C-alpha cells in the first residue's frame, strides 16, 4: 500500500518535472512531448474520435489471427515431430534455417506476396509465434516422465491413449509457456509489420505520428501498446493458472 502510494507520488513528480522541462523548452518538446498533451491524445483517441480504438482493433485482430494460426500449427507440428521423428529429421534443417532468420527481414517479401493489408502482418506474426510454440511443444512432449511410459507399457496402453492420457497433459505446462511468449511475439511481429508498411494498425499510426513529429501521439500509442501487451500476458497467465491447477 505504502509502496503503491510511493510509486504514484514518484510518477507524479516525474511527470511534473517532465511537464516543466517541456514547457520551459529546456529540451525541445519535439523529442520528449508533454505529459498533459499525451494524456489528452490518449483520451481523445480512446473516447472522443476513437482513432486509437480503431487502430488498436486492427492490430489486435492481426495479432489474434497470427497467434491462433501460429500456435495451432506450432502445436500440430510439435506433436508430429515427437510422434514421427523421421518427419522432424527431414524438416529440421529447413526449420532451423528459417528460425535463424531475423523474421523482420521477411517483411518485404510478405508485402510483395500479401500486399499492404492485414495478411502480411499476420504472416509476420505467425512466423515468430510458430517456431516458439513448436519448440516448446517438442520440449514438453519429450519431457514425459519415463516411469509413466513404463507404466503404460506394462498396462498395454495403445499409442493413442499414451498420447491422450500421458504425453499431452505432460506437455501442457511447456506448451503454455510457449503460448505466453508466442502471444507477445505475435504482437511484436504485427507491430513491426505495420511500422514497415501498412494501411491500418497502431504500428502504422506510430510511424505516421513519428514521421510528422507528433511526439505526444507517439508516446500515447506506446503507452497503449504497453497496456495491451500487459493485458494479453495477464489474460494468458489467468487461463494458464486455471488449466494448470494441478501444478
Amino acid at each position, binding site marked *: 500500500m505504502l509502496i503503491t502510494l510511493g510509486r504514484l507520488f514518484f510518477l507524479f513528480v516525474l511527470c511534473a518535472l517532465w511537464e516543466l522541462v517541456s514547457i520551459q523548452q529546456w529540451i525541445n518538446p519535439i523529442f520528449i512531448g508533454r505529459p498533459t498533451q499525451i494524456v489528452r491524445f490518449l483520451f481523445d483517441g480512446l473516447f472522443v474520435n476513437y482513432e486509437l480504438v480503431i487502430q488498436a482493433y486492427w492490430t489486435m485482430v492481426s495479432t489474434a489471427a497470427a497467434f491462433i494460426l501460429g500456435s495451432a500449427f506450432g502445436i500440430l507440428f510439435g506433436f508430429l515431430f515427437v510422434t514421427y521423428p523421421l518427419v522432424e529429421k527431414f524438416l529440421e534443417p529447413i526449420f532451423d534455417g528459417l528460425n535463424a532468420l531475423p523474421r523482420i527481414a521477411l517483411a518485404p517479401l510478405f508485402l510483395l506476396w500479401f500486399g499492404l493489408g492485414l495478411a502480411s502482418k499476420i504472416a509476420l506474426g505467425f512466423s515468430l509465434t510458430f517456431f516458439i510454440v513448436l519448440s516448446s511443444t517438442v520440449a514438453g512432449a519429450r519431457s514425459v516422465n519415463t*516411469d*509413466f511410459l513404463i507404466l503404460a507399457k506394462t498396462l498395454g496402453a495403445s499409442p493413442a491413449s499414451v498420447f491422450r492420457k500421458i504425453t499431452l497433459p505432460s506437455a501442457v505446462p511447456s506448451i503454455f509457456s510457449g503460448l505466453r511468449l508466442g502471444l507477445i511475439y505475435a504482437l511484436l511481429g504485427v507491430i513491426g509489420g505495420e511500422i514497415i508498411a501498412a494501411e491500418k494498425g497502431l504500428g502504422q499510426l506510430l510511424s505516421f505520428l513519428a514521421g510528422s513529429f507528433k511526439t505526444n501521439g507517439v508516446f500515447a500509442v506506446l503507452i497503449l501498446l504497453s497496456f495491451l501487451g500487459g493485458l494479453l500476458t495477464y489474460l494468458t497467465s489467468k487461463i494458464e493458472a486455471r488449466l494448470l491447477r*494441478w501444478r
Partner: protein
Amino acid sequence: MIEIRGLSHRFGGEVFAVQNIDISIAAGEFVSIVGPSGCGKTTVLNIVAGLLPTEQGEVAINGTPPRAGRHDVAYMLARDSLFPWCTALTNTEFGAEIRAEPAESRRRKALALLEAVGLKGFEDKLPKALSHGMRQRVALARTFCLDSQILLMDEPFGALDAQTKLQLEDVLLQLWASMRRTVIFITHDLAEAVVLSDRVLVMSARPGRVVADISIPLKRPRSVSDLQRDPHYHELYAEVWEKLEEGMTGMNTRSISLA
C-alpha cells in the same frame, strides 16, 4: 504360476548381470527377492514383466512367455508415478481404464480400494496435496484395481521413511489377504521381506544367482507390530540375514578358493 528356468541375462555383451536363475512361484504365493544392490533383482523382474527380452533360459507366466501389457500381470514401480494432473480417484482408476474396464465397475472398485488403503475422503485430492505415504497408498490402490492375478513390485516402499513403510506393509498385507494375488516383491529391507512373504529368495552379488530359498511359515493374518513380538519372526529374520551375508561374501571367497 511363474516358472523361471536357467535364466541368464547380460547387458551389451558384458559380464552376466544374472546367471542361471531358477524360480518357481505357485499361484497365490507371495515371494520376496532380496540381495545386494546391483545383483539383478530389477533385471529379473523386468524380464518377467516383459520389459526386457528373455535372452537365455525360459520364463513362463501361466504357461506363456512374458509380454509387456498382458492383462494377467500388473507392475508397480518404486516411485509412486502418479499423474500430477489426476485426482487420487482418477489415478486409482487409470490402469483399469486403460484396460477398458467399464466406467461404473472400475469407479466402484477404485472407491472401495481407496477406502481400504485408508484414503477415504481424499478421493478428489491431487497428488501435490498428498504426502509421500499417501501417494504410495494410491499407487497400491491403482495396482490392486487391476484384475491382474500377478503383481510385480520393485521396491514399492523403498523411498518411504521407516514409520510410513511399516504402515504401508500392513496395508499391503490386508489387501493381499483379501484379494490373494501372486506377488513378486523386491526389497532391500529384510524385515519387510520376512513380514510380507511366504518365501524369501536371497540373491548373491553380481552375477546374481539365487543362493537361498527360505520359506516363512508365520501364520496369517499377520500384522507388522504383532510380528515384532514373535520370536519365530526374529529367527527367520536372522536366517535371511545370514544367507544374504553369505551371498555377499561367501560366494566370492568360495570361488576364489576353487580357482
